[in-house]
């Protein structure tokens, strides 16, 4: 959570509003009113000229522990993050002074538009940030239509 900003804030009310939004977005309200944690990992999706781009923050994940699959227009991200070990043994609970990070297995499925080219999917993982490139189908790209005069 942001604790302050680098620059002088020009609209504190807007910041507050966004903070409250973020807090509310962090939980999902079910019909029964039970609060459920939101899905992990959080993703951002962007549209570029030739592709869609999905980004997710996955600190501490190893490339070999990440699994990406695509089937029937659903992209599934799967992986696990192991808690640190010392000499192959878990660190005893009483040794911890602070524990804020989370570990374990996770999985998330994202519906993707059908106008993407499945074969050319690519992904990169750097500094704990995953980027998935979903190229658009050729037909989807804007095309020039020649206009000829009737003469």
């Amino acid at each position: 959570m942001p604790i302050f900003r680098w620059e002088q804030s020009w609209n504190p009310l807007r910041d507050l509003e966004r903070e409250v939004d973020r807090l509310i977005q962090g939980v999902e309200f079910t019909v029964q009113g039970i609060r459920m944690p939101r899905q992990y990992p959080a993703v951002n999706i962007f549209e570029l000229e030739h592709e869609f781009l999905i980004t997710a923050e996955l600190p501490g994940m190893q490339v070999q522990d990440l699994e990406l699959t695509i089937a029937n227009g659903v992209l599934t991200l799967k992986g696990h993050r192991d808690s640190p070990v010392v000499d192959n043994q878990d660190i005893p609970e009483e040794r911890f002074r602070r524990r804020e990070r989370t570990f374990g297995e996770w999985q998330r499925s994202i519906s993707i538009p059908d106008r993407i080219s499945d074969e050319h999917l690519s992904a990169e993982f750097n500094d704990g940030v995953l980027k998935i490139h979903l190229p658009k189908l050729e037909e989807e790209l804007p095309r020039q239509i020649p206009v000829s005069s009737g003469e």
Partner: protein
Amino acid sequence: MSRPHSEDEPREFLTPEQFVFTPPIDIYETDEGLVLYADLPGVSVGSLELQVQDNKLTLLGKVEPQIPEGALPLHKEYEVGNFLRSFILSGEIVHSEIEAKLANGVLRIFLPKAPKAEPRRIQVNTG
């Protein structure tokens, strides 16, 4: 995928400098010292600043924008920003021997404790 409903969101989204996050950390103690882990996704070795001043350890991780310019956000679940957190070190930590390693967006800092002096017997003489 849903489209953003607010018109001014894209511009805001493209300036990560605006946000400063407190990264989640783990600290555990060993016989030799303290081990600290911090999650800093998007921070590379070149953009991480670690500083010890007096007895305060400060970590600042600068995050580069994750997306090319001109990308249109369709769906947004997290914000990108820099990471900042500081810690007060206890007197037993040997500042000059602090080690840090950054891998896959996780920082590991080892804070060694000064070895305890061996108990020494003090001879008591009678007056």
